[in-house]
C-alpha cells in the first residue's frame, strides 16, 4: 500500500530571500514522478496547521536518488517547513496529480486533451517543435523539472520565459543555463531590475506574434495564467497550465480543490479536481471567471 514516506532532507537552502530549495532522498519519486506532479508535505506534527501542503516537484536527481521542491514562505506551513534542517525527516505523500503532457518523440505534438492539437500545429516547422515555457515567480518549480525532461527530447527549440518582481526573485537562473544549450532564457522583471521591464506575458505575446512558438507550458500566478490562456486562444495554439487551489485530501476524494472547466453538451461547465485531473490542465479547458 502507498502511504506517507518518511524521507531524509539532504539540502535545505534559502536560495533567495524567502525562497527555499529543499531536496530529499526518495528513490520512489525519482522513478515515479512526472513533471507537473506534486507532493503533499506534512509541515507540522500537531493539529495546527492541520492540512498537509502541496508543492510541485521541482527536480529529480537520479544519481543521488533525490527529489526536490522549491518553495516560498508565505504562511505558517511554509514557515514551519523552512525550520527543518538537513538530516531532519519529512513526511511526504506523492507523486500526486496529473503532470504535463510531454510532446511525443519524433512526431507532431498532440496533447491528448486538446482535440484540435494536430490541426493547430499545421504551421510548425518540419523538424523542430518550438516550445515556450513560461514561469511567474515560484511557478518555475514544476517547469524546471519539465525542462529536465524536455532537454533530453530531440527536435525541440525551447524558449524559457521567467518573470519575477525583481532580480532577486528570478530563481534557478544558473541551474537553467546549465541544463542545456538548447534552451533560450528570457527574463522579465516588474521593476526592470533585470531583463525585460514588464510582465512576462508581454514577452510571450511578442514571441507568439512573431510566430515563433507552437506550444506553451506555463505556471505562475492566476492572472498570468489567464493572460497566457487568452494569448493562446488568440493565436489558436495549444498549451498547458499548472493551477493552484486550496486542497483537502490531495488525492481526489473530497472535491475541495475544483476549478471550473469546459463542460459537454449537457452542462455548460464542470468542476474538475486540481489534485486529480490537474494540477496541469490544457489552457483552453479552464473557465477563468472564478
Amino acid at each position: 500500500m502507498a502511504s506517507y514516506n518518511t524521507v531524509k532532507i539532504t539540502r535545505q537552502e534559502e536560495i533567495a530571500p524567502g525562497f527555499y530549495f529543499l531536496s530529499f532522498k526518495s528513490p520512489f519519486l525519482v522513478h515515479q514522478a512526472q513533471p507537473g506532479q506534486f507532493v503533499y508535505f506534512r509541515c507540522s506534527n500537531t493539529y495546527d496547521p492541520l492540512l498537509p501542503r502541496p508543492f510541485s516537484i521541482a527536480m529529480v536527481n537520479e544519481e543521488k536518488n533525490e527529489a526536490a521542491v522549491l518553495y516560498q514562505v508565505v504562511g505558517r506551513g511554509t514557515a514551519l517547513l523552512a525550520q527543518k534542517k538537513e538530516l531532519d525527516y519529512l513526511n511526504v505523500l506523492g507523486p500526486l496529480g496529473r503532470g504535463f503532457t510531454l510532446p511525443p518523440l519524433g512526431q507532431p505534438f498532440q496533447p491528448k486533451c486538446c482535440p484540435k492539437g494536430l490541426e493547430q500545429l499545421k504551421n510548425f516547422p518540419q523538424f523542430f517543435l518550438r516550445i515556450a515555457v513560461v514561469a511567474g515567480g515560484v511557478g518555475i518549480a514544476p517547469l524546471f523539472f519539465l525542462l529536465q525532461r524536455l532537454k533530453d527530447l530531440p527536435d525541440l527549440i525551447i524558449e524559457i520565459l521567467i518573470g519575477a518582481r525583481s532580480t532577486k526573485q528570478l530563481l534557478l537562473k544558473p541551474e537553467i543555463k546549465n541544463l542545456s544549450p538548447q534552451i533560450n532564457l528570457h527574463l522579465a522583471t516588474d521593476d526592470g531590475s533585470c531583463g525585460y521591464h514588464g510582465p512576462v506575458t508581454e514577452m510571450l505575446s511578442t514571441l507568439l506574434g512573431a510566430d515563433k512558438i507552437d506550444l506553451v507550458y506555463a505556471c505562475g500566478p492566476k492572472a498570468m495564467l489567464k493572460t497566457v490562456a487568452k494569448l493562446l486562444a488568440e493565436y489558436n495554439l495549444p498549451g498547458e497550465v499548472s493551477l493552484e487551489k486550496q486542497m483537502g485530501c490531495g488525492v481526489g476524494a473530497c472535491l475541495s480543490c475544483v476549478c471550473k472547466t469546459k463542460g459537454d453538451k449537457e452542462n455548460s461547465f464542470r468542476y474538475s479536481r486540481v489534485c486529480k485531473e490537474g494540477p496541469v490542465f490544457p489552457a483552453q479547458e479552464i473557465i477563468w471567471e472564478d
Partner: protein
Amino acid sequence: MVAVDLTVEIAGLKLKNPVITVSGTFGFGQEYAPYVDLSRLGAITVKGLTLLPRPGNPPPRLVETPAGILNAIGLQNPGVEYFAASILPYLSQFKIPVIVNMAGETVEEYAALAAKLSELNNIAALEVNISCPNVKKGGLQFGSDPTAAAEVTRAVKNNTCLPVIVKLSPNVTRIEIIAQAVAQAGADALSLINTVLGMAIDLKERRPILGNIFGGLSGPAIKPVAIRAVWQVFEEVSLPIIGMGGIFTAQDALEFIMAGAKAIAVGTANFINPRATIDILEGIENYLRENKIEKLSDLVGVAHYKT
C-alpha cells in the same frame, strides 16, 4: 495474542469492526484504495448522493481553520444512476458493507432516492443526510426541525427495507429532541455529527472566503462538540449511534465509544493520514488487548455509568 471481539451490530447490520469512513471525505473509496486495504474497514460510507447529478458549489470550497477545516462542497455528485452503474460494482469487490449517504431538496426527493437505492444490490444501509450546511435547499433545513426531520425519516423508511441511519446536525438547540423525533419516525440508527456551521473572511479581499459564504467545520476542533452530542443523545434515545467529528486517533475513537457510540467514523483525518482508519482500528484493538477487555461492546457508553 488474545483475540478481542471488535464486532458491532447497528440496526441489524453486522460490522466486523467499528471503523467506518464518514461521507464526503473518502469519495467513493477508489481514491483511497491505493492507501488503504478497504476490505479491512468495518464499513464505508460514500459521498452524499442525490437523485440527479449536482455540480456542487463554486470554489473556493475549503479553508483551513485552527485544528479544523471549513468545507462547502455543496454535494457535488454524479447522481444515483451513475453511482449504480459505475461505482457500486467497483465497491462490491471489497466485500464490506456500503452505506449510502443520501440527500434531497424535498421530502419527495428523499423518498424517490430511497426507493431507487433500495432496488440495488450490495447496499447495506442508507444514511439520511438532513444536516448538510452547504446547500441552499434541503439539508440543514430538515435537520433543524423535529417535525421536518421526522417527515424525511418516515418518507425514507416507507420506501426502503434497508436499515435507515439518520445523520444529525449539531447546529441545533437540542440535538436530543431531533434524535427523539427521528427515532419515533422509525430511524434504525443515528450518525452524529455532521459539520458545525462556520465561516471565514478573506482579509485581502474583504469578503467571505468560501464561494458559498458559509461552510461546515470538521476536524479536531469540533471533537468536543461531537462527543457532547453523542453523550446527550445516548442519554435520551436508545438507538445505536455512529460517532464522528474530529476522530484522528484510536484515543479519540475510544472517547466516542465511552460516550455512547457503537461505531465510529473517520473523516478529515484521512486528509492528513490516508491510513488513519487502519491506524485507528489497530489502536482500538491494542487498547482492548492491553486493558484485557474482551468485547468492544463492553466499552460502549461506560462513561455514563461512572458519574
